């Protein structure tokens, strides 16, 4: 389960003013649920996800991943969370096999467990044929799948995915989203953000719309679909000036 309670993150800008990148965000993503976090650029999506992943420390509020608090037990959070973003890369000079093995060891998996886990994951991600090729020679889609494998190697109960389909072609994006649906089916909590609303409008169970650091709208797939203009209409209605919360 992913829980955010009054999560806030304030930065000091170059001109000395305080910027409230995330301002009192609260939500829950239940096990076996995939929730879409929608918002324009610079409204706090990535900051929220980095707070959940312990890459940033909240200014106020807190969050829990599978019962572990991001402030009290950041290492516990990392053991229970798989995080992937459009900017998380893979080492160019290591092979997918080596990437998965090294992160498996970092997460405390024993060599015997890795012997089974790594080939199975490579197979599930369609990377078996290029498992021994340096990541620098892989296509963007293959690299993103290696990244996903890195996020899944320790079999985390929760996944936070920040624009995971960015840079992927339509086939690559579909395959990745199909895989995420399977992972949801295994009972994982998944929070995903993307600018491509059509990719997730039929896959997510619920949606959160964030604007200026605050959750300005939330609803189930059915509720969003019922809004005028569907999910896209609900999104614009929530983020455009004058919109009622």
């Amino acid at each position, binding site marked *: 389960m992913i829980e955010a309670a009054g999560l806030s993150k304030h930065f000091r800008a170059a001109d000395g003013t305080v910027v409230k990148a995330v301002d009192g965000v609260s939500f829950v993503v239940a096990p076996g649920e995939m929730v879409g976090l929608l918002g324009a650029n610079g409204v706090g999506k990535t900051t929220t996800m*980095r707070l959940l992943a312990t890459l940033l420390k909240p200014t106020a509020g807190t969050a829990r991943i599978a019962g572990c608090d991001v402030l009290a037990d950041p290492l516990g959070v990392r053991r229970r969370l798989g*995080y992937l973003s459009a900017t*998380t890369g893979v080492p160019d000079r290591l092979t997918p096999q080596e990437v998965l093995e090294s992160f498996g060891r970092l997460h405390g998996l024993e060599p015997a467990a890795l012997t089974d886990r790594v080939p199975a994951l490579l197979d599930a991600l369609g990377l078996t044929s290029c498992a021994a090729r*340096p990541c620098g020679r892989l296509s963007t889609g293959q690299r993103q799948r290696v990244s996903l494998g890195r996020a899944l190697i320790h079999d985390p109960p929760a996944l936070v995915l920040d624009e995971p389909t960015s840079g992927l072609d339509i086939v690559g994006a579909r395959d990745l989203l199909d895989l995420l649906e399977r992972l949801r089916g295994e009972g994982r909590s998944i929070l995903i953000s993307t600018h491509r609303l059509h990719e997730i409008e039929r896959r997510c169970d619920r949606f959160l719309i964030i604007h200026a650091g605050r959750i300005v709208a939330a609803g189930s797939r059915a509720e969003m679909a019922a809004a005028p203009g569907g999910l896209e209409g609900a999104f614009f209605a929530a983020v455009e000036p004058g919109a009622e919360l």
Partner: protein
Amino acid sequence: MTAPNTLPWGRAVRVIARRDLLEFVRDRRTLFVTLLMPMAMYPVLALASTLGLRTALSDQEARQAPRLLAIALSGPDAEPLAIRLEQVVATVADQPPADWPAQLTAEPVPARAAQQQLDDGTADVWIDAPAGTVAALDGRGTVPLEARVSALRPIDTRRQRHLLAVVRALAEDARRQRIEAAGLPPSVLEPVVLAFAGGSPFESVASMEGILPTAAGGVLVLLALLTATGAFYPAIDALAGEKERGTIETLLLAPATAGEIVTGKFLAIWGVTLASLLVNALSICLTSLVLLRFLPAGIDLGVDAACLTSAALVTLVGYLGLAAVAAATCLAVTSGARSGKEAQNTLTPVILLVSGLAGSALLPGADGGALAAIPFAGQVALARDALAGAATSVLVFRLALSLGAAAAATWLLLRGAAAALGDEELLFRGPDVAGSLLTRPAPRSRPTPMQGFAAALVAFAALWYVQGIAPTDLALAVPIQQAALVLPLIAVVLWQRVDPVTTFGLTAPGGHRWPRAVVGGVFAGAGLFILGATATLALRGTHLSPAARDLAERIMGLLLDRPWWLSGLLIALLPAICEELFFRGWLLAAFAGERPSRRRAVAAVLLQAAAFAGFHLLPERMPQTFLLGVVLGWMTLATGSLVPAVLAHLAHNAVPLVLVALAADGHGQRLAAGDTTTLPGWLVPAAAGAAIAGLALVHAARRQ
């Protein structure tokens, strides 16, 4: 599948080190700089220096080779003098004296022909032998000979020495004949004869004595530089490269602390640096073997094989520490960079600084003992002294000191790198924007750490350049030095628009408890001077370097010859205000930041104290000034005000003035000059009491 909740200690470190090492060894740039460059560098340098040496030796040999000497003889006695010279040549044929020409010709010719021969170069010198010359040689008189040389073709020094040798031999021959004529034995002229037994001592055609230490010093500095360079690319790759590729986030998402990540990366970089060190050492050994074959036969290396082996061992062990500090330095310096390019730009001047530090160990008068704890300089000085055959006990002590200092420096640098890795602003702020230096920043309460470093560098450079132009008279030199410190600072403060009250602690110390802070500062400063001077003398004795002695004499001159108020202004007041504004004001505020954690406060105090010690330039004063800087930094952070530090500094520097003023019998003058042999027994305990009471008072006035 479930991952364990806790990992065994060090497991994450090992995994990260292994992962990074794997990446480094697959990087062509790293392999080139680490392995290939040293293998090619030393042979090329050795070849160039050997060719240079051979050329120099050949040149020397050619310059020392005997030449022909042609003498044109004229005058009535030219013929008999020529015959006499032939006899002399025959006499010395078996054992030619020093500077004897390869061939001597002495032709009797008419005067006009002699001039002609001089001008066309056929003769080197023209000697006119008037009538009675040879008779005078055989008699008891002195023969005045005049050697004429050509204005068109002046005789060279080599041929001048040949002519002198010929004239000396002629005189010797005449002397022998006169002795025989007088019926005396030849031994009259040779009361003592020296002979070498067991072979000639002049077998070597040249000696390497004098050349070898210089060459070895150069190689040691090069070894330090190339070892540090071995850490260059791996360090850039390790953090800045990972940030650029977006892989650092993946490591930070792993269940490992920043300290474990940094330590793992450090081990990988150290491994590459050690490989670089070993390849360098191997290349030096192999090149030396080749070099020996290149050298001309008979060269005396003047090296003892046993000494060379122990020196190599000491060098290698000492350089293990150097490699660790180099790896940690490169990692710490690049930890603040967002991209590889940014890291490269930051690291390049650091590598140059490191080579300068290593080279400083070879400066004339550089004391290896004092340098032992200074990274890079210490290892080079240690290796140099090991090669020079220093005593084993001395080497072992200094090796232990060097390794201890390297371990401490490495630990501190890794702490800094771990702190930078956890810094959200450094991690996610994005690359630096070009031209930001010229953009006036928004007003802020206190400077950033980077502004602190920049100001320290500018001040140090300004101070260094001022040394070259400052007059020797302290009455002028001190104001110029202090101006070099604060004038750039004033410009920076105005440009950066920092709040001077917050930055420089321009507030009453300790609120209503300010009297305690004021009195405490004065007591502590005065007590610390006596304690510091006594400790320095106890540890180092009265031996001072020429620079320190010169400064002490100039200070004494100032104290004795100038009015007390001028001495007080120059020695106490001006430094207390200017240096405190800079070190405990600007630097401490920049490094500590607002509401610093305990660790950051300690690091800030240590950093500014190190800069304060470095600012005084004299190595023997650095320990004392460093400790004083630590105390003054603590006072400032504790009270939130600069006032106690200014007063403590003022009292510290005023003690010599007071001693001179109080002592009518010259006792105080000796004390002020650093001679504590006549210290009254109560002074040191009184100073310790004053220092403790002063610090306690300042502690009582600290901020809540």
